[in-house]
């Protein structure tokens, strides 16, 4: 080898980096770090977002209950003694309230809990204002309970609940007009005696919303049902319409100005802000057609219009992914165009279409802005009945319920709003997981 004698080797050695090369390498490292930092910030934001919401929300699923034996006195609850529901319905919650109060005081006395620092009203207000109504409902549902002594589970008031969850402290209670430290001392004693306990609360998922003053009783039942109704409408309407539109545009339509217009149109509809759809729904469905406000049918229709572009775009992609050779094969044995599509192309594209539909539904489920405009922010305490009538009755929806709760002044509602978000995210996660599984299971590479 003669190259050892080449003079160029010393100053231009590959093995020794000169200053400029070192600077360039440093710039390279910096640039890489920027990228890593950007990704880290993005991921941290995700983690921060989820932990903040989840951390605030998990407590909403647990609730503090006051558990006392209540004797259901026939003389108070059913004076006639006939167990006639109509007559019993005349007994108002006030009478039930008195009954509970007596039971509570008696129980505290037997357990030897000192309530001398509290007024009668303060003792009673350890319990939710919902308690008498709860008991009344329980009794009306089962009149045979009258005369017996039952163990009555009542919600503790939200401040007591907050105290056991750490949200309320003695110090904050002293500045609070709704609770006093003395009440908390009694509550603490009751917990020691096993009268108060914090546990899992199904009624957060099943009960309807409750008024501003009783956050402990508020639940998501109506919201979940309303969202389910709307998703039903969206699915039933947007899937067939979306698939039909895609088939027409992708397979049948001539390429001309008119179809070009439709395509540009769909692309733009996908990017129209959701609030504009709300305005459309308000003007068209409610003011013009006279459909009822707050009804799932209106929400379902507006979400359908919003979801259509998503489904159309996904379906067209799925149709495009079916290779032309399949169509040619069908046409080649004498099938008509329509037959080749419905017999061969559509079944092959179905997994893709379903995946797109589920993702579209997930998007619709989380949408809230348009629903605000069609009156779904209303306070709804009654469950809508079964479809089809129920579709016309007032309901609310999960994301809107979250918004509504955040607008209330009692901080206990923030916990419930976060809890509702957890429910919403669980639904979304499930839907996305189903979509991913569908895609993995049926994905076909041509």
């Amino acid at each position, binding site marked *: 080898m003669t190259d050892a004698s080449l003079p160029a080797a010393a100053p231009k050695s590959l093995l020794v980096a000169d200053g400029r090369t070192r600077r360039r*390498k440093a710039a390279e490292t910096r640039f890489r770090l920027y990228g890593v930092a950007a990704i880290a910030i993005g991921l941290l934001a995700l983690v921060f977002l989820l932990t903040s919401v989840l951390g605030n929300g998990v407590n909403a699923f647990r609730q503090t209950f006051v558990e006392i034996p209540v004797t259901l006195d026939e003389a108070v609850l059913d004076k006639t003694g006939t167990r006639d529901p109509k007559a019993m319905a005349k007994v108002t919650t006030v009478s039930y309230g008195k009954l509970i109060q007596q039971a509570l005081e008696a129980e505290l006395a037997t357990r030897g809990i000192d309530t001398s620092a509290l007024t009668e009203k303060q003792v009673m207000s350890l319990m939710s204002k919902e308690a008498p109504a709860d008991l009344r409902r329980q009794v009306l549902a089962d009149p045979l309970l009258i005369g017996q002594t039952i163990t009555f589970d009542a919600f503790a008031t939200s401040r007591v609940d907050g105290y056991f969850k750490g949200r309320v402290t003695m110090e904050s209670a002293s500045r609070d007009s709704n609770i006093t430290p003395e009440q908390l001392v009694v509550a603490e004693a009751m917990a020691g005696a096993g009268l108060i306990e914090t546990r899992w609360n199904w009624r957060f998922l099943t009960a309807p919303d409750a008024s501003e003053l009783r956050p402990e009783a508020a639940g998501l039942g109506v919201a979940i049902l309303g969202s389910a109704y709307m998703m039903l409408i969206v699915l039933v309407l947007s899937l067939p319409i979306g698939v039909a539109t895609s088939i027409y545009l992708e397979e049948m339509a001539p390429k001309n100005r008119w179809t070009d217009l439709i395509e540009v149109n769909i692309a733009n509809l996908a990017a129209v802000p959701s609030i504009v759809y709300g305005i459309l729904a308000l003007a068209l469905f409610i003011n013009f057609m006279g459909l009822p406000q707050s009804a799932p049918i209106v929400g379902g229709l507006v979400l359908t219009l919003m979801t259509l572009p998503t489904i159309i775009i996904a379906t067209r992609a799925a149709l495009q992914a079916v290779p032309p050779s399949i169509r040619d094969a069908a046409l080649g044995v004498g099938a008509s165009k329509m037959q080749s599509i419905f017999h061969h192309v559509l079944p092959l594209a179905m997994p893709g279409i379903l995946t797109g539909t589920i993702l579209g539904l997930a998007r619709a489920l989380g949408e809230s802005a348009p629903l605000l405009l069609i009156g779904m922010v209303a306070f709804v305490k009654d469950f809508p009945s079964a479809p089809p009538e129920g579709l016309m009755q007032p309901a609310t929806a999960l994301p809107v319920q979250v918004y509504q709760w955040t607008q209330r002044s009692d901080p206990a509602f923030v916990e419930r709003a976060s809890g509702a978000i957890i429910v919403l995210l669980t639904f979304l996660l499930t839907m996305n997981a189903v979509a991913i599984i569908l895609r993995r299971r049926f994905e076909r590479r041509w």
Partner: protein
Amino acid sequence: MNVMQIAERATATATAKMTARGVQVHYGENHALKDVDVDILAGTVTAFIGPSGCGKSTFLRCLNRMNDTVASARVTGEIRLDGEDIYDRRVDPVTLRARVGMVFQKPNPFPKSIYENVAYGPRIHGLTRNRAELDQVVETSLRKAALWNEVKDRLQAPGTGLSGGQQQRLCIARAIATAPEVLLMDEPCSALDPIATAQVEELIDELHTQFSVVIVTHSMQQAARVSQRTAFFHLGHLVEYGETGQIFTNPRDPRTESYITGRIG
């Protein structure tokens, strides 16, 4: 071989600029190049020929470590530039590529002006101190690439607006501007028409006085026209390597002969 013109070769004693010993390349499971030994001589045009997939482009890309950009590629063996192992851990491929430039199969001008295309290399390597020097480098490079007369009035026009042949000469000018010692050309004429091909070949012939040129080509005629030395690759093996005249007129290996006479490939 009757139609082939074989140029007269200057076979003066040239020193080896690059030496490759026992080079093996794997792409994942695929063993693409098997045990190749080649010396690239200074001031010569070396042609790599062989059928598609024989490993000639792969080997070319080893010479300036372009295979580093392919995640699955694994190179073993030893390649030295002026006696220094280019796969040494201390070697920055960036410095290596400044000295071993490359021109690609398809013309790939950057979406910038003609001037900026040529000035790109000098700028990133900091080869010039001021604008005047840069102008000078750009002009010289374009002149060497025989493009100056065609583009001198529109240096600020986008490089993508040139014709295919002009684009390829622009890419050659871009490579020359960094003042490399070895210039690798990966089928530089395969996307060009015959006239543009002739221009590029003429250019290669002029360039080899200043650089070592290594050219991968599919066309045996082209190899015969422009190169002094030829290496024939087949199925990842280097079959034969020697003087171009000898390879084309008197191949030692039967496979080389079959390829040259058109029986395999």
